[in-house]
């Protein structure tokens, strides 16, 4: 495990150097950016500052020093009918550069997305974009981390069969048991819970690790993965598909012909079935919104406290210094709260998924 981490660290340093090199030979630009920075400081916009940190990005920004943006370039993968497949590093598009007819839009419908432009820099189309963005990279890192951790735990279970857990195994065993016994077994029932436990464990630890990684401000953390609507959409989609495809006869009967409801609410106009059917879609939709909103809100608040320093600093530098202890104290407090929220939201998502699975497999009883 240490070896892998070391290798990861090493490659990241290599990548940073590469990036520095790509910026290093652009002397004139450096001057420009210093100038830009000065104007930017005067016009500090907390909204942009916060949303830049929360949204996805084509490169993994590390820090800005004297107007030099140091970022890890990530692969851009595009497809357009006219130009075919485009495959290059995101550093080619930094600072609004146009590369092979692609650039990152600054405004319009596709703001901050890669668009295809003509010679004059006018918008042509939005290509099919499956670039490895910051969030994709973060998902891959945390996924690899999950596999690394749990396969090694599985090996220690095999190696030390019927013995007390040890090391990281004993750290995570209570959580595994908690998900299996208190979430899966309680919500789904003795008969079916074993089928769903692996999925529930996966979403729990996937959300948890991404929540925690999101709290670490530096690489490989700092990506707002679980606060991204697309990610939560995908997670909710998995829950929805599993619920729908494993639902038994009783589950569908409760939707289309709910017992104990007067017939006139179902027959000429299927009012109740219609509401039930909407409920089927609303359930995963709520899952998606809840996780996204909670994690994003936490990040926004933390970044908001930091913005205060610069807002006051822009009025008078002394005021920025005066506000900073308060801001930092609040940020630390929020970070602790976020730590709690990281666990709670992972638990809530898993718990609700388990409850939906429980509904889908509930046996008919009189």
């Amino acid at each position, binding site marked *: 495990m240490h070896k892998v981490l070391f290798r990861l660290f090493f490659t990241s340093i290599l990548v940073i150097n590469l990036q520095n090199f790509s910026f290093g030979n652009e002397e004139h630009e450096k001057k420009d950016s210093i100038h830009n920075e000065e104007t930017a400081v005067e016009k500090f916009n907390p909204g942009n500052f916060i*949303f830049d940190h*929360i*949204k*996805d990005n084509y490169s993994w920004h590390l820090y800005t020093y004297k107007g030099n943006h140091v970022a890890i370039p990530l692969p851009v*993968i595009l497809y357009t009918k006219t130009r075919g497949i485009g495959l290059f590093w995101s550093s080619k598009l930094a600072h609004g550069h146009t590369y092979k007819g692609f650039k990152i839009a600054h405004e319009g419908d596709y*703001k*901050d*997305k890669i668009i295809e432009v003509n010679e004059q820099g006018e918008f042509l189309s939005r290509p*099919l*974009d*499956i*670039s*490895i*963005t910051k*969030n*994709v990279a973060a*998902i*891959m890192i945390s*996924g690899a981390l*999950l*596999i690394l951790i*749990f*396969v090694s*735990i*599985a090996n220690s*279970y*095999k190696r030390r*069969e*019927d013995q007390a857990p040890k090391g990281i195994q004993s750290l995570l*065993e209570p959580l*595994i*048991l908690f998900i*299996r016994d208190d979430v899966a077994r309680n919500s789904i029932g003795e008969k079916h819970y*074993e089928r769903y*436990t*692996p*999925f529930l*464990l*996966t979403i729990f630890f*996937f959300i948890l690790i991404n929540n925690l990684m999101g709290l670490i401000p530096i690489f490989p953390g700092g990506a707002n993965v679980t606060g*991204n*609507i*697309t*990610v939560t*959409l*995908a*997670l909710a*989609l*998995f829950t929805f598909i599993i619920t729908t495809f494993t639902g038994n006869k009783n589950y569908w009967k409760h939707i289309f012909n709910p017992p104990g409801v007067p017939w006139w609410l179902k027959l000429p106009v299927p009012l109740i079935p219609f509401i039930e059917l909407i409920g089927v879609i609303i359930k995963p939709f709520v899952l998606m919104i809840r996780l*996204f909103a909670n994690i*994003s809100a936490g990040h926004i608040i933390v970044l908001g406290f930091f913005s205060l320093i610069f807002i006051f600093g822009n009025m008078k530098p002394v005021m920025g210094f005066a506000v900073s202890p308060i801001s930092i104290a609040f940020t630390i407090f929020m970070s602790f709260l976020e730590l709690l929220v990281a666990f709670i939201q992972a638990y809530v998502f898993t718990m609700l998924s388990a409850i939906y699975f429980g509904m889908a497999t509930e046996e008919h009883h009189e």
Partner: protein
Amino acid sequence: MELIKPDLGLLFWMILSFGTVLFVLIKFAWRPILAALKNRERSISKSLLAAQRAREEMAKIEFGNEKITQLAKIERENLLKEAKELKNKIIEEARESAKLDAKKIIEEARQSVQHEKNQAINEIKNQIATLSVDIAEKILKQRLGDESLQKELINDLIKDIDLN
């Protein structure tokens, strides 16, 4: 509102990555882990049951042991009592027989003393008889010298015979 607009590329990668993680974890992590946990739970409950059974067995054995010791105690007491009785009996018997023996010996001694006494008396009697005859002879020898005395004597003797 870019923040709440899902991105297709990210969705694609997310589903692919999460699907892969899900598949790999289920196959190589959750199945062995859950199986190991289940096995361990089973073996723990089995061991607990076995321990409980062993404890019960132990209690049973202990109870048996106590019973045996109690029985042994009673047996010992009985044995001791019997031995005491036997001892007393033997002593009593010995005493009795000793008494009898002593009596017998005393009787025998008395008898032999009596016998000796009788013998001695007889001997003395015989000696007295001999002495008496000797004296009588000497007196007769003296007295038969005189005729009248002889006659008187014969008379006396005849008188005695008549009386007999």
